[in-house]
């Protein structure tokens, strides 16, 4: 049964729910960041509680900072600007959203970001339009303004080759969902660009001993490592002996099984569990449910599709939903 839980402002083009699904942040074409709250924790009706002008341009993506670091969002704007905004109350004043950090880059626009949480720190991976990935680390867990650039590399397996002038139209990042304290810090990232080597989704893992990021797996179909990647999503793992990562390319939705333990070369085993016809075009978003069993996707056909594996491990579309006006 569907029910409406919030009505969005005019010009809203992106939205994001916080970790406990009690707050909604939306971004609009006039650069407004709107926050929706419910007054009762048990209620499922959300109303706008604050509007803040964060940019003169269009906000294309809003991402919540993990709750261990406060109520804060990162806003990516259409011109590639990236800023962090935090809800704080200072000196007894009422709460307000304040700018705490602007990430400046001369080389490229920010296309996508995601926050990754380790036992000790908060990391931010940003994919830039020049094909570079930048990993920032928060210096002070109480202050979201102090970030240090930890790494800066291109999304290629061979670290020697560099691509000078590339044009990336979109990128997608997904961290390994946090499971336990000792878990390796990893993320998967894919590009939609004119450079085939950059495109394919790679799993990057932080090498603690040498303090560097290493590509440990490449999720590319044998026939098409040049496929432009629309979206990636790392499934929560509540006890599987392998990881599941969904990668959406122009060929469709690929469900990858990735091994947990690296081989002698430090690589993780990968296997395509399924290749599913997606949305007949661009895939806008992919989201796994909390058990990592159901994948929800949406794309250029405007449909919401749900995907599951059956008892035999065969993936199939479980349902599709067509937005329909009453």
């Amino acid at each position, binding site marked *: *049964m*569907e*029910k*409406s*839980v*919030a*009505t*969005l*402002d005019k*010009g809203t*083009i*992106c*939205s994001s*729910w916080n*970790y*406990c*699904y009690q707050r909604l942040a939306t971004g609009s*074409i006039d650069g407004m960041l709107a926050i929706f709250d419910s007054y009762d*924790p*048990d209620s499922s009706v*959300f109303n706008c509680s604050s509007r803040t002008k964060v940019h003169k341009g269009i906000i294309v993506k809003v991402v919540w900072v993990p*709750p*261990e670091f*406060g*109520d804060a969002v990162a806003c990516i704007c259409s011109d590639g600007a990236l800023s962090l905004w935090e809800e*704080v109350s*200072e*000196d*007894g*004043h009422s709460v307000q959203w304040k700018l705490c950090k602007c990430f400046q880059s001369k080389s490229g626009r920010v296309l996508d970001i995601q926050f990754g949480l380790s036992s*000790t720190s908060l990391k931010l991976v940003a994919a830039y339009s020049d094909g570079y990935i930048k990993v920032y680390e928060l210096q*002070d*867990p*109480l202050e979201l303004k102090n970030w240090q650039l930890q790494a800066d590399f291109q999304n290629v397996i061979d670290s020697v080759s560099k691509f000078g002038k590339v044009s990336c139209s979109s990128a997608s990042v997904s961290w390994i969902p946090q*499971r336990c304290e000792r878990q390796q810090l990893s993320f998967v990232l894919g590009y939609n660009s004119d450079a085939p080597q950059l495109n394919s989704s790679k799993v990057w893992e932080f090498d603690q001993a040498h303090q560097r990021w290493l590509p440990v797996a490449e999720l590319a179909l044998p026939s098409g490592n040049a496929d432009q990647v629309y979206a990636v999503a790392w499934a*929560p793992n*509540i*006890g*599987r002996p392998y990881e599941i990562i969904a990668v959406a390319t122009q060929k469709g939705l690929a469900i990858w099984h990735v091994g947990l333990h690296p081989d002698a070369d430090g690589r993780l085993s990968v296997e395509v569990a399924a290749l*599913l*016809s997606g949305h007949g075009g661009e895939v806008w978003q992919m989201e*796994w*449910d*909390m058990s990592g*069993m*159901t994948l929800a996707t*949406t794309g250029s056909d*405007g449909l*919401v599709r749900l995907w599951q594996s059956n*008892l*035999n491990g*065969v993936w*199939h579309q*479980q*349902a*599709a*939903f*067509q*937005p329909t*006006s009453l």
Partner: protein
Amino acid sequence: MTTKWCFQSTPKALTPHFALHSPAKMLEPVPDTDDALPLVPLSQEPVAYPLHHSLSHPVSRVSLCWSRGNSLRVSLFCQEPPESAIEATTALTTEDDGSGGVVVELSMSNGSSEIDDAEWRRIAYGSVAPFALLQNRKNSAVALSKLPIASLSNVEWWEYVMDYSKEINSLLVNSKLHPSSMIDDPRKIMKVIKEPTCLKAAWELWGIFYADKQHQAWLPECLVDWLADYDCLFSQTHPTVHSKLVDLQHDLVNLQTIEDNPKYWEGISSALAVGWLDIVVKLLHLHGCNQLDQIGSREVEKGLVDAVVFLVSKMPRLRSESVGGRLGECYKSRQDFNMAREKWRAKLTKLDCSGFWIQCGHQPTRDGLKNLLLIMLGDIDSLSASTCHWMEFYISHFLHMRPFTVGLESMYSLAQQCIQLKPVTHRHTLMGLLVGILGENTEVVLAECFKAFGPWMVAHSIELLSAGGEQSETILHQKRHNLGGISIEELHRIVYAQVLASHALTWQLAPIYLVSCEKQGMDLLEILLYRQPVQHNQGLLKILEYGRLYELGSVSSKIMMIAGIHHWKHGRKGSGIYWLQQAQDEVRLNKIALQLFDFVGKTVSSESFKQWEGLIELLGSDTKTAGGLEFLRKYRDFKKSLQQIPDGKVNDTARQAVESLMKLMKNPSTPQRFWLPLLYDSLKLLTWPEHPLLNVSETNLLLNKLQELSMAKLRPDYIDADLPPQALSSVRLALAKILDVLFSRSDNPFMQFRSKEAQTAGKSRLKKCHECPQLPHNTWKGPSICTKVVDI
């Protein structure tokens, strides 16, 4: 795994209820995919369900997010129409809805639509205790016997399963006492005592086949009773004996001579075919020949009717006991039943061959009664004609044709024959379920159950199924790589837990099911607890209680840390520190301590003492920030004593303040940036009007500190305190004056003594200080202060 059955999803395109993880889908035949990738083409996709929204403009973009459990929140963003279009639309509709999008929550958790949400919640809450009790019993039994569950086939264990089955069954009663049950109306042949649901019918079916081992020998009779209770449910989709009798009851009011009406005889024969003997007898009593005014003229007719009534009433039944005073002679043992049935059949045959039939002048009565005899003698054509759908036909077999059908295999083949003889256009859920059970196909049974009744039913009925036999038990408990290493049983518990988790009023029940999951339950429970809102203390405490109960210390710490940071950042600093301390988050507490340092450093001279005093108190002894917090506490003590000093009057407080000051200045953990503020704050002590409160060595120490500070000022990392520009010179002047006074008062024996002491400070002199006979006891209170000062 081989699957004979392939059930496509019911085309419920417009039903709002949609169940995830449908095992019906899971049972679809698998193509040979050893080498090729299984590409699922779009042409095979099922119908898209409509996702209703209230937007008037077309949707340009969709964004989605899973909420707790398996609720999906979908943001629909409107296409911004061109200005001209807006004007035109506004002109036409005179108002624009003004929204740029809407967020719709899709709840994909409900099972059967026959039960509303509130009723589901009642059932969900009610089923927790029996489920938990059974799990406990199972765990203790396993722990004691160290054997797998399958080995626990003792009587006690069956009693546990039976208890569980009954407990759950009692929850599913939707009893509504019908007024008719209060009045014994002779013309009321159908009593509605409760409103049966398919859910309850299905649960009882499970109970009959899997849980109730006591009645296994009388299984066909159990099915007869089951159909008597639930035949009405089939009326929604099929003509049934029940609906036929309900129609007849409506007609009874208007019929004068009912025995002339074919419906009357049809109703009796149908009721007899499915074994509703009470109704048969009741209807036969309504026969006109029983009317007082007609007894004389219709003697033969009445004799025949009474004979049939007698035979119906005495029909032998292979069952333990008569339920609710139902008619028929019950026999527990097959042998007794056999003998009684032979005798009874002999009576039937005798009546059938009786000459009275020729004497009976009323044709419909003669034909009707004859037909009843045929039914009781097991005539297949009569049974087929008297029953409406294959299940009724099937049940009639047990009563009148094959009372000894035993074993699921023969029951299954009989069911198949009945399906072929009386096919149905639309297969009712319960029919599919029965066929699945009879076919001993665990997957099909689960699939049917899931499709019709949703995750609750499957999660709970698996307990019965796994108790039903080794084969089922193996299928249900086998770890499957394709499911990420979990069993079907665990999968369904997880799925049900997610359903519970998706609603604010039921998420608290989810942990009970998750902890019963051997492999993946605890991880999911951690995620579930982590994703609860913690801004309100009441909710937070509840989550922490769960964390404590299930020994999830790490997630509790995370939750308390989240709460701590939330409060800290939202101006509730005390609550923030409290929860961070509870979380034992040293990193953040140390950062807070450093922030306090900065804060104190800036406002040391202001009167904002109270603001941070409480925080220091809170940070207290638990925090292991070496030196830092120690300094803050000493500073607090000093500040307190400073505030308590009365103007110009020497007392213990003033001396304690001096003592605190000196402790602070000597302590290496006191940050340098606090030196000047401390001294500037202490100007009152340094410029004490009557006597200097410091001795020479103390004054010298402070002057040295000032000198050090002047040197430090030249370094780039020096942090300037927020003090007036003359602060340093004021302090230096005050200290100089003290020295001046101290040396000029050398006539004071105590000062002479102290001066000496100062030059050769050491603990060995302390004793002398105490022993000094010249020390006045009424001024300066020398020994005590001296002791303390020197002791430092």
